């Protein structure tokens, strides 16, 4: 239409013809008029749009799907096609459903609902990005992104997740352990497995092969010590923390990492902040890459989850046993009343107390690693009750845990003692 108008006006200028100018000018006026009417209608529609989102869960872990249901109310039009898209929060992925609604060509208020599922990829508190409204008629098309605070509600709380995929177990390839000493080069025969194409036949165990009628290959391993697993507990972002001690802790961690890589050729570091897993460096062999990760990651971190000095179930049971024992021994009535009340409180707390998700995450995270020692570095400031949740799964795997509390903090509540500015507690 604009092209026809342009051609007519050009012809009018060239030919100096008033009739052609009339045709071109009036056509141009019509196009301009329609564009003004379109703008007016578009503004009316955009002003009428409102959205109400509801989430299946307000707080999710990253990688966990969350369902979103958005109810969109707007003013429809008989000659305009309206398309409204719910803009997802940043760093999320749409996995199911459709976040766009299209109007039916009817005037009056319309209510449309779109339901979809998203997966947050990064932890944090991302808000929705707003709404995108596209309006189209046979001649014009316009779109506007609405990002007012009310268009971006609610805020999704994405908690960090420690669900790191465990490495496939070495014992899954059908091997059989045969821990007997070998005379061959002082190595230990770790296991036997069936011959596979490419295996060195010099390593065949002919006795076993003759016995079973299949070729078995020896797998050797040298008796080596395992690298220690390093856990760094970062202070909370925004809260006061002893900076000198923190710098010292980083220096100690980097020193241990360097020593571990030089000695064992690899190192694994788990970075946490309270009961939140921040990052896992898995069996890193490159020292400079490991150092750059540490440089990037060793800063105070947000703690979306707090334990609030929570005691775990084992401690509570232990306290309960002590109280029961005291009740049995004590004949004094006021003391018995006190212990009865205490016993009642412990029993009630145990009834509603669940094992923390953090403890399970730590157990799943460390399960693929082979280690005999673990070093835990912490400033020990504020709540340290999560340290128990780390130590317990490690102890259950017969791993020696060396806790390094840097600095002196008399208010700690983890059951750990920190008598010196820098102390090591072996659990």
């Amino acid at each position: 239409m604009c092209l026809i108008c342009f051609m007519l006006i050009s012809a009018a200028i060239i030919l100096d013809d008033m009739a052609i100018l009339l045709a071109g000018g009036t056509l141009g006026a019509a196009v301009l008029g329609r564009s003004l009417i379109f703008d007016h209608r578009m503004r009316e529609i955009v002003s009428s749009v409102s959205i109400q989102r509801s989430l299946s869960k307000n707080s999710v872990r990253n990688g966990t799907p969350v369902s979103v249901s958005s109810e969109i109310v707007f003013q429809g039009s008989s000659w305009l096609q309206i398309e409204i898209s719910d803009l997802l929060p940043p760093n999320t992925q749409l996995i199911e459903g459709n976040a766009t609604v299209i109007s039916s060509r009817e005037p009056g208020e319309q209510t449309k609902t779109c339901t979809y599922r998203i997966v947050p990829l990064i932890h944090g508190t991302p808000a929705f990005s707003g709404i995108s409204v596209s309006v189209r008629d046979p001649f014009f098309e316009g779109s506007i992104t609405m990002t007012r605070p009310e268009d971006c509600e609610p805020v999704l709380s994405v908690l960090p997740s420690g669900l790191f995929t465990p490495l496939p177990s070495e014992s899954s390839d059908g091997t059989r352990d045969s821990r007997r000493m070998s005379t061959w080069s002082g190595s230990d025969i770790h296991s036997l497995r069936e011959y596979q194409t490419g295996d060195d036949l010099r390593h065949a165990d002919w006795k076993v092969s003759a016995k079973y009628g299949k070729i078995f290959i020896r797998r050797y391993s040298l008796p080596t010590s395992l690298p220690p697993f390093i856990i760094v507990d970062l202070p909370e972002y925004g809260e006061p923390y002893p900076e000198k001690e923190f710098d010292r802790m980083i220096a100690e961690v980097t020193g241990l990492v360097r020593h571990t890589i030089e000695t064992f050729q690899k190192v694994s570091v788990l970075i946490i902040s309270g009961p939140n897993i921040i990052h896992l460096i898995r069996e890193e062999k490159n020292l400079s890459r490991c150092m750059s990760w540490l440089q990037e990651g060793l800063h105070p971190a947000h703690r979306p989850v707090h334990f609030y000095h929570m005691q775990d179930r084992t401690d509570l049971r232990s306290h309960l046993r002590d109280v029961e024992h005291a009740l049995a021994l004590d004949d004094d009535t006021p003391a018995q009343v006190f212990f009865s009340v205490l016993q009642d409180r412990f029993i009630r707390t145990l009834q509603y107390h669940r094992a923390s998700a953090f403890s399970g995450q730590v157990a799943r995270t460390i399960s693929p690693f082979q280690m005999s020692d673990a070093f835990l570095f912490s400033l020990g400031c504020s709540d340290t009750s999560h340290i128990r949740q780390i130590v317990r799964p490690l102890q259950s795997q017969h791993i020696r845990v060396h806790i390094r509390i840097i600095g002196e903090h008399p208010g700690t509540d983890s059951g750990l003692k920190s008598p010196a500015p820098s102390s090591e507690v072996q659990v």
Partner: protein
Amino acid sequence: MNIPRHEYGFFLLLVITTLVTTVITATSFWYLPILLLILFSAIFLLTQTGRDRVIYLVCGGEPLVIICGTMNLWAGLIIQCTLAGIISVAMGFFESTWDQRVFALFCGILSLVTLLIELSNHVLLPLFVLGAATTVILAARSVRMYQFRKQYNGARP
């Protein structure tokens, strides 16, 4: 064939205006408006269910506007208004009272444009006035749209 009542009325007005203008002015090229009228009528009737009907109607109608405008400028205006009416009805822009009022306003503005052209001896002056008016309107529209977008992008009013 289901032709809307308003569309039929506009078409009838267009035919009558063309014929009356041709008869009254009695120019030497009297056959041209008749031929273009036949062509437009054919387009009007054959494109009832076509997807791009509007563009065919404009392409068929504008030569008729130019020929009738050459004979008489006000006749050209009436043909242009009836053509706009046919297109409005075809697009569904003539259904509500508000639409009809907008159409009446549009016809009024076209009359002013025609008056401006009628009073001018050459194309340049009315073209300059039309261009200036269009620029002012587009500038105002851009500013309003910018303010509107800013308001809905979360900026404080």
